[in-house]
């Protein structure tokens, strides 16, 4: 079977690639596109380490076929920082809200998506929103506190 040709946008840049029908988006990101920030933790949609955005909505890229990316707008962790780090990234460093770092790209992508929709989340809302991001070091408390503090800072900056 011939490879499938896909044209898509990743972090605002147009990309083209060839893939097999059953190849996952994560596989293509990490392989042909060289974007290794998204991690494969479980490969079954449980851990969230492969979280990306598709048309500004978070999904597990391990549970998406690469062929589905045709004409879509993807966002990965590599697109999170501009000239400077995103406030979430800065806060995670400041508060040491990461240990081994495998879950961090996924957590950051999910947290950013939460704050875009809800700039003033409760701790309860943060914990439920991030329920699909597993931290194998079990460092959840610092993650949740860093998201809450970033939200507070960003609200302050926006005032």
């Amino acid at each position: 079977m011939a490879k499938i040709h896909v044209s898509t946008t990743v972090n605002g840049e147009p990309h083209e690639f060839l893939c097999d029908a059953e190849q996952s988006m994560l596989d293509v990101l990490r392989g042909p596109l060289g974007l290794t920030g998204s991690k494969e933790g479980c490969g079954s949609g449980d851990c969230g380490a492969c979280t990306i955005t598709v048309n500004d909505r978070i999904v597990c890229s391990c549970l998406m076929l690469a062929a589905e990316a045709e004409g879509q707008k993807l966002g990965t962790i590599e697109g999170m920082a501009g000239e400077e780090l995103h406030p979430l990234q800065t806060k995670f460093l400041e508060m040491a809200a990461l240990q081994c770092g495998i879950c961090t790209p996924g957590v950051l992508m999910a947290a950013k998506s939460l704050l875009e929709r809800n700039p003033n989340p409760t701790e309860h809302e943060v914990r439920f929103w991030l329920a699909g991001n597993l931290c194998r070091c079990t460092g959840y408390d610092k993650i949740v506190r860093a998201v809450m503090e970033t939200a507070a800072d960003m609200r302050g900056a926006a005032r």
Partner: protein
Amino acid sequence: MTDIQYLAPKTLDEAVRAFAATAGKGRILAGGTDLLIQMRAGILNPGVIVDIKKIPEMTAIEETKDGGFRIGAAVSGAVLREHPKLKKVWPGVVEATNLIGSTQIQGRASAGGNLCNGSPAGDSVPAMVAAGAVVTIQGPKGKRELPVEKVPKGPGRLNLEPGEIVVAFTLPARPKGSGDAYLRMIPRTEMDIAVVGCGVSLTLDKGTVTAARVSLGAVAPTVLLVEDAAKALIGSKLDDAALAKAAAACSAACRPIDDKRGTIAYRTQVAGVLLKRTAAIAAQRAGGK
């Protein structure tokens, strides 16, 4: 290299033709949150994957002329949740669909996929059954409609003819004083599979139940519509005696399995308990007590 083919038709007719042409070797792809896992686990090896998300009616939520809603089979839980009106009219359906997996899963997983995966524990299915949803199905022989509770046949099996595709759910118009709710019993608060699920839809007039539908998930080979429980509630003011009778009807309807998630006795007992709790929420939403 691979011999799997990926198709993304832009119209329903095209999809039906392509799916029928696979002669049973194809699989429909909506959110893919079950399909991709089953493929990776080697449970499924489809020759053709038919992605239905490029078909506009599969991903649209529309209000029907009579005030109901038509929800495309591939609409994700996240899109359902963000619909401004749907959550007010059918909060139970929206909540149930958003109990499926994490935020990331909700970005993809659909009620159509949840139904067609055929799990007796699918969370959106009991809520759709309680809501009285009607499923539109299209196949090589044309279009037909089925009440949602008639679609599942057993675990992983559906009452669909070869080549048929689930296209949409239609939720009826809501009389004044109506409310629905769905609760599931799981040992944790998120990211788990229902041990028991219960959907209730009620219409109240001055505190008296004038219409009711009750459903149960994860207690039988398919999701159940429990008509005896609804009968016990209709005409009552949801007093303790009526709720006890409806709870007993729920327990009596259970034909569960014993597994790591719960025993037969536990599931049977919890079905009754959940009925009472779910009915209370539905009644509150209906503006009763």
